[in-house]
């Protein structure tokens, strides 16, 4: 009986060690990527090498510049600028003076 219990304890102990070893082995595998520094990104213009384990990133499209105003608004601003300039020019042509020639308008393009 004592021999049987001793054997059982040895068996349980051995299984425990095996379980810990298995857990350690699987944990170290999953944590490798977290511990290791991340692979530096391959430049988009670098050609992918056949035997390289790094994969070239697809060519990146340069992001569209962020314009301060939509083009429709810009076109409207241009039209308003032309109208204001024309009105100023009409005033000058009707009564030509140096002051009227260089009169200011409220156009955002000149302020």
């Amino acid at each position, binding site marked *: 009986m004592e021999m049987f219990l001793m054997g059982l304890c040895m068996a349980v102990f051995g299984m425990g060690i095996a379980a810990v070893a298995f857990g350690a082995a699987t944990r170290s595998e999953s944590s490798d990527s977290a511990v290791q520094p991340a692979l530096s990104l391959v430049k988009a213009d670098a050609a992918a090498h056949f035997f390289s384990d790094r994969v070239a990133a697809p060519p990146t499209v340069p992001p569209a510049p962020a314009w301060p105003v939509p083009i429709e608004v810009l076109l409207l601003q241009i039209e308003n600028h*032309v109208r204001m*300039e024309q009105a*100023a020019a009409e005033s000058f042509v009707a009564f030509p003076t140096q002051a009227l020639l260089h009169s200011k308008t409220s156009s955002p393009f*000149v302020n």
Partner: protein
Amino acid sequence: MTYDLLNGLLSAEAEQVLGLGTRLIVPSGTELFRLGDPADRLFLTERGRIRLTLPMQVRGREEDIFVEERSPGQTLGWSALIPPYRFTLTATATLREAEVIALPREALREYLAANPAAGYKIALNLAVVIGHRLQLFQTMWLREMQRTVEVHS
């Protein structure tokens, strides 16, 4: 309706000139003529408004930029009377439908040659239309030049 091109003409003369033309309906947003098109007709605006535009590069795209607007009674398309007889702007009806009277160049020339008194008045009126445009754009050009000089000096 009075037309700037027919100022000072006797009513019979004005009727004769208008009789040379054809009335055209220009639906909203439709081009009456385009920059570079052969110019063989002069137009009198009868109803609605016509926008005159020029192409300009805006953010890498070609856009028609507003230059002037013609309202009823005003003349447009005088490139039809001046070599090389090509339109130098694009004309489009605005948000409302427009109506114009199209005067063919050859018919107008024949009339002016046969009626020199009326032809003289029309030539003077045309000079006023062209001269006004020149004065306006000369002034606008100078204003822009002044700003350019201020920015770069």
